[in-house]
Structure formats: C-alpha cells, structure tokens
C-alpha cells in the first residue's frame, strides 16, 4: 500500500524546488569529480548545465515512452509507468554525463518488466530494438546486464513503484457505487488515461501520492466534459467538515495541473546541440562502450 511504501517515505518530496536542487547537486558532483581528476581537456565549458541536462532528459524520456508503447507483446501501463519512474529517480541523483541515458533507458524498461512481473525473456526484449542488427542486440543485452545492478543500487533497492492506474480504477468503481450524480463515468475513461500518460512525463510522481494524481485526472476530465463533480469530494470523501484537507487537496490538484501545463516537448535543435556535447563528454571521459541508436 502506498501509505507504508518506500515511495512515500523516501521518494515523495515536498516541492519542485527540492527536486531542482537535487538535480543541480548531481550535476555539480559530476563536474567536481571530473575537474578534480585532472584529465586532459577538462574545463567547465565542456560540461552540460543542469537545465541543458533537463532538455536531454525530457528527450530521452519521450523516447523511452515511445519504446514502451511500441513494445511487443503489449506492455501494461503500470510497467510503463514504473519504467519512467525509475528513469526519473535515477537521474535525480546522477548526471546524464556520467551514465548515458540511451543505456539507462533500456535498463529501466527491462527492470520494470521484471519487477512488475510482466514476463519477457531477455532475447524477446532486445528483439524489440528494431534498428539494431542481431549483433547490436547482443551488445545491447550485455550492456543492460552490466548496468542493471547499478540502476538497482541508485534506486536504493526501492523497486516497488505505485503508479496512478490502479487508484484510478478504484476511484471509478467508487464513483459508480456511491456517486450516482455522475451518470456515465466510463465516458471519462479515455481522457483520464490520456491525462495520466501526460502526467507521467512530469515530476508529479515524485511529489504527490498516486491516489491524488488519479483524483486530479478524474476531476479534470469531468470538468472538461462539462460535468460537475465538486460534491464528490465533500460528500463521499467526507470532507465537508474538514476544510483544511479539502483546501490541501485542491492545492495539490492545482499544482499537478500547472506541472502538466509547464511540460513541453523539447525543441529538436536544442536537443541536437546538447546531444553533441553529451556525446563529446562520454567519448572523452566516459568509461563505457557506446551503443548505436
């Protein structure tokens, strides 16, 4: 359950600023490490800034999402959500310059399949890398197995991720049972799904409990469809008296929606420029062999 999970204890932060701070610190740590190592060609200009890393992060995150959506056999949504969450958590404490996102992205998906008990053999998994030859797929698999333990370590062995999909189902069931004012909750399902997919690309998973995210999704979809659902919170959830909790809920929902609005797909020219820089850093200072794609 979420309320006793490691996600609540260790991976739910208070505000976006603390997340920014962590990412900035990860970036700084890598820079200092490289500057201190005294390798040739090291200078501040060579490295990526935190906001540049952010652009690249979003780019690779989108690629991860596309990879999971194109996966055969069809990946359940919770597996996709878990993979993206791993990716996000990993790069909260590590810099993209130290571990290339291309590799980490695949390992996140692989680990997520294992953890969520979505049975895919390793050959089947790398078979989904359609751009690679068989040899390329082999190399990819080797890389995955090499870095898998690193990923688990950086996740601090907290492998269970609570995604908003089951809470969403639960809330729909509850609405159908206790809230007859909303006539056809099933009609909301598609837009709710869409909302949840978009929300995984934001930092909401690291800031809010999945049940709140699901609630936001449902209320948002309802208001978009012109249906009023305000009394659900006050009546069914018993928050009529508890003004404070109600205000907090509204505040959380507002913040989630603003995070979603702020998200934008990274611009291609920016991405390419930073990618060049990233490749330089990995080629010069990286210790791992690179993969194509």
């Amino acid at each position, binding site marked *: 359950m979420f*309320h006793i999970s490691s996600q609540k204890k260790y991976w739910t932060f208070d505000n976006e600023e603390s997340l920014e701070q962590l990412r900035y610190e990860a970036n700084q740590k890598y820079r200092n490490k490289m500057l201190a190592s005294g390798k040739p060609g090291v200078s501040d200009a060579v490295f990526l800034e935190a906001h540049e890393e952010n652009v690249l992060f979003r780019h690779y995150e989108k690629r991860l999402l596309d990879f999971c959506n194109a996966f055969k056999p069809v990946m359940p949504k919770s597996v996709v959500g878990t993979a993206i969450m791993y990716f996000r958590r990993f790069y909260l404490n590590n810099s993209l310059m130290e571990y290339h996102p291309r590799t980490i992205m695949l390992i996140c998906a692989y680990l997520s399949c294992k953890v969520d008990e979505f049975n895919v053999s390793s050959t089947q998994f790398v078979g989904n890398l359609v751009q690679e030859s068989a040899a390329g797929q082999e190399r990819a698999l080797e890389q995955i197995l090499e870095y898998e333990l690193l990923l688990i370590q950086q996740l601090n062995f907290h492998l269970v991720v609570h995604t908003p999909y089951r809470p*969403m189902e639960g809330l729909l069931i509850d609405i*159908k049972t206790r809230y007859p004012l909303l006539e056809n909750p099933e009609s909301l399902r598609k837009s709710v799904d869409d909302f949840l997919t978009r929300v995984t690309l934001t930092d909401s998973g690291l800031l*809010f*409990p999945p049940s709140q995210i699901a609630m936001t999704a449902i209320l948002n979809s309802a208001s978009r469809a012109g249906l009023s659902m305000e009394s659900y919170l006050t009546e069914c*959830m018993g928050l009529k008296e508890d003004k404070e*909790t109600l205000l*907090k809920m509204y505040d959380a929902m507002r913040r989630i929606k603003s995070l979603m609005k702020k998200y934008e797909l990274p611009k291609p020219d920016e991405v390419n420029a930073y990618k060049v820089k990233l490749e330089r850093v990995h080629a010069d200072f990286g210790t791992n062999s690179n993969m194509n794609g």
Partner: protein
Amino acid sequence: MTPEMDDQGCPRCKTTKYRNPSLKLMVNVCGHTLCESCVDMLFVRGSGNCVQCDTPLRKSNFRVQLFEDPAVDKEVEIRKKVLKIYNKRDFDFSNLREYNDYLERVEEIVYNLTNNLEVEGTKQIMEAYQRENRDIIQKNKAKLTREQEELEELLLLEQQGNEQRRLETLQEEQRQLQAKRKSKQALLDELERSHVPATILLAQHKDRAAQLETQIEKQKQVVKTTIFSTGIPMGQTVSLLTVNRLEEVLYHYQPIHMHTYGPPVPELEQLGRLGYLNHVRTAQPQDMAGGYNSGLACHRAIQDAFSGLFHPLG
C-alpha cells in the same frame, strides 16, 4: 564378529580381541599400547623401556585403555594431571575474556605435553603457576571434593531407592504366588471333603480367584506417594528461601492502527452489500477455483484509490 574386535591388537604379541576376548590393552605415559600379558612379561622387574619408543616406563603407570586411539588415552591422563593444578573456575575471573585466555593457556599446555613439544619449558611454566597460585589451588581442591561428595551422596540415595523398590516388587510377587497356590489347594481340599456338587465349588473358586485378582490390581495402583512431583521427599523440611517476586505487567492486546492518510476503506465483507461488486468484472469459475473472488480485486482497487488521498495531512 564386529570390526573393532579385529583391529585393536597388541603390537608385540599380535593377539587381538578376536583370538582372546578378554584381552585388555594398557596404555602408558608415552602413548603406546601393550596387552596385559605382554605388560606382565616385559615389566616383570617393575620397570623397563617402551617397545616402540624406548622411553623408560614403570609398570604402575599402565592403565586400562578406554579409547580406541591410545593417543587419546595419553591426552586424557595428561589433562587430568594438568587440571589438578590448573583448577580455577569461571567465577575466579573478573570477565569472560580473562577466563577464555586462561582456558587457552591450559589447552596449550596439554597440547604441548601430549605431542612432546617443549616439554621442559611447559613443565617449568606449570611449576611457576603452581607456586604462584598455591592457595587458590588449595581452595578449589577443597570445593571440588565437597561437590564430588554431594554428588556421591545423591547417587547413593538413588541407588538405595532403586534397591528398595526392586525388593518390594519381588516380595509382592512372592505373596501373590503364595496366595494363588493357597486358593488352589483350598479348592482341592474342598472337592475332597465337602458334599456340595463340584460345579458349584468350581464356580465359588472362580469367584474367589477373580476377587483376588482385583485386589492385586488395586494394590498395584496404590502409588506409594513418598515424594512430591518436584522431587522433594515428603516429610522433609525444606528451607524456603524467599523468592523475589517478579512484578510483570499483564499484556493487553492493542489492535494495530494503520494510518492510511485517506478516507476509510469499506471492509471486504461489506463490499457486496454496498454495491461495489456490481462494477467489477465477475469472477470466472476458473478464477474462483483458485480461491479468487471479485471482492478481492475490488477491495484492492479501493484501498489503492483511498491510500494517501489526504496526504500529507491524513
């Protein structure tokens, strides 16, 4: 023929237990064995040299071998001698570490003497220790003898008790036998003398025999209660040391309270009644066979939906 009868043999005359079952092997301080007859032959003068290692030995030092490996016997003898001197006990030391160090030293000494390493040095160490700790050794010796006496007393008591019981059961059996014989004899006499028909006499005799049986049974069942179940003999005055009463607080069960940071979840059993199950996919017979029912999935979904909904306030 058991295997061990064959391999233990006297190194000199080569007789084994197989050929001479009453063969006794004797071990001396050097660790080599000789059978009884060889000992008598070689040490007729009282002292001589060991056959295998040529150490000067005395006949009186030969002891009957208790262990298969003569080296073990040798070590046991050495250990007994060493422990006569090194007889400190665990309460003579201030902490566990010191006691363990002491034991380690004792083991070293025994090992050295058994394997003939640094015999001179070890003997000197032992003498030095003996001189320094003379009074403690004496004290512990006294304590040891007292304990041994107490143990012996207990053993004696036990033996006496066993003896007594054995005698009693024997006597009982005798009495029963006699009673049976008497009744048989009485039957024969009556058959001879009386004018009552034989069948009635036989019936009477049978009755009496049955009565006797029950009597015997009852007697057996009368347990001689001489001791309480704790082992304290009845009638003995026991000095009751005041036992410290341990005051302990009685355990009260407190049900676990889980803070879910969200609205209360309906109970699993109530789900059907409240109408939740109408909105969940019904369980197929294949699922139900394994113990699944739709309430489980529904309950899980509701739990997840409500958990943490009011976070961080709850």
